[in-house]
């Protein structure tokens, strides 16, 4: 050893292949080991969000529906307790945020009443729009136990019932937009949801 290997063609190809093979093996190994934990971490996050927005449940079924206004389909996690549906967690979104897309999980009881909401991801301005997150302010509390049939999902400035976040009307409007999308889809798909309404 001591002196470096000569750079002839065979040497170069051999070394590079060897390095690549070892790297691929190492990566494959790590991938196999971390695959289950990664899936678990993702599932946990989703479950935590569903649990947060719905009353207690013991099983979940998943359905996808297109919103009546057009756009990407929304995922419904229909939760039931002892065979009876207790509500649906709807993964909804809006493109109208200050920073673009916002994903929100909305829990709706069988009659369409909003049980709770949870912001899944957003790019809103820190200190302003990010107040829609329950960790930052109480903005989202006002939606709890409100039914959009009587509670107008619009900010007060636009003639609705929602108190906007100070200086972040755009983010507040976007939040309402996402909720409206969830509610409209929920209403239009009543027949396909098989909810235990009575």
């Amino acid at each position: 050893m001591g002196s470096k290997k000569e750079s002839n063609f065979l040497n170069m190809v051999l070394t590079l292949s060897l390095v690549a093979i070892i790297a691929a093996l190492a990566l494959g190994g790590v991938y196999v080991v971390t695959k289950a934990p990664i899936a678990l971490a993702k599932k946990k996050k989703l479950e935590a969000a569903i649990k947060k927005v719905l009353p207690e449940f013991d099983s979940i079924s998943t359905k996808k529906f297109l919103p009546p206004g057009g756009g990407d389909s929304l995922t419904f996690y229909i939760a039931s307790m002892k065979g009876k549906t207790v509500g649906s967690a709807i993964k909804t979104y809006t493109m109208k945020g200050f920073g673009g897309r916002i994903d929100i999980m909305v829990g709706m009881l069988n009659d369409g009443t909003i049980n709770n909401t949870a912001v899944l991801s957003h790019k809103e301005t820190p200190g302003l729009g990010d107040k829609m997150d329950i960790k930052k302010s109480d903005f989202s509390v006002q939606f709890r136990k409100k039914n959009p049939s009587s509670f107008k999902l619009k900010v007060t400035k636009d003639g609705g019932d929602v108190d906007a976040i100070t200086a972040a009307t755009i983010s507040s409007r976007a939040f309402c937009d996402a909720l409206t999308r969830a509610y409209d889809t929920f209403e239009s798909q009543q027949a396909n949801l098989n909810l235990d309404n009575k």
Partner: protein
Amino acid sequence: MNKFTISGSPHIKSDESTKKIMYGVVFAMVPAMLVSIYFFGFQAIRVLVLASIASLFFEWVIQKYLIKGPVTIDDGSALVTAILLAFNVPSNLPSWMIIIGALIAIGMAKMSFGGLGRNIFNPALVARVFLLISFPVQMTSWPKPEGFSIGLSDATTGATPLGIVKEGLGAGKTMSQLKPEIPTYIQDLMGQMGGSMGEVSAIALILGGLYMLWKKIITWHIPVAMLGTVVVFTSILWGIDSEHFADPVFHLLTGGMLLGAIFMATDMVSSPMTHGGQIVFGVGIGILTVLIRVWGAYPEGVSFAILLMNAVVPLINKGFKPKRFGLKPAVSKKS
């Protein structure tokens, strides 16, 4: 270092002429100052005094203890920055925020670059944008101008005309529906509208501008290019759809348009040297302002537009440098 042969704008030969210019600008701002005191009362005096004391103090401390150079707080430039800063904030802004603004304007935008004549960006505007982004709630609660009052208590607040239009159009209303909510042009001219302290009265600002033109402190190129561009651009939009775009007069009289065009875009340190360059600079500010006002998230774009064009000034100066005979148009023959 050959700093004695090459230096950036402005090419100020003596301290005396700087002083004369700076105090000329201060004098030109007196009408707007008086109007702001008339409408916003004691609060306006508080903002003006606090901004001035804080700016002069920071300039003195930094020159004496950090840069350890000559102290030139009496040249009037810090005072001009202070008054412009005060003009650019709502009159009920908490005192500590005004002090932060003064620190940003003097400490960051001016002294970090070496002081007067070396700053790239207009100090008062850097401070305004810094404050606007840092304290969005306080920087957009505009007290209603209600005539002189001695109280320091919170006055009722309302939106600026630009804010009303942006909000209204955003909510799907049309211009004719919004008409009753926004002030009339006569009110705009006098200053009866919500806004930053110094921007409310068009007449007072124009008076100051005329004085500076008369005293040759500024030339017509930048303000005329900027305002002309705004008029042309907004007229086109208004002509296409008068229900969803505000008319050019509205754009001219509201917000920081005149304050920016007369007092801030014309700042000789951060604007181009040649008249050709100044026209390009003014046109650029006009276009950017309308873009931000009409399509951006912020209702007012003048300060952003001026800062953005400040950044382009070195390039404009290169493009409009009088060419020396025999010099190839090569770009990199420096140092």
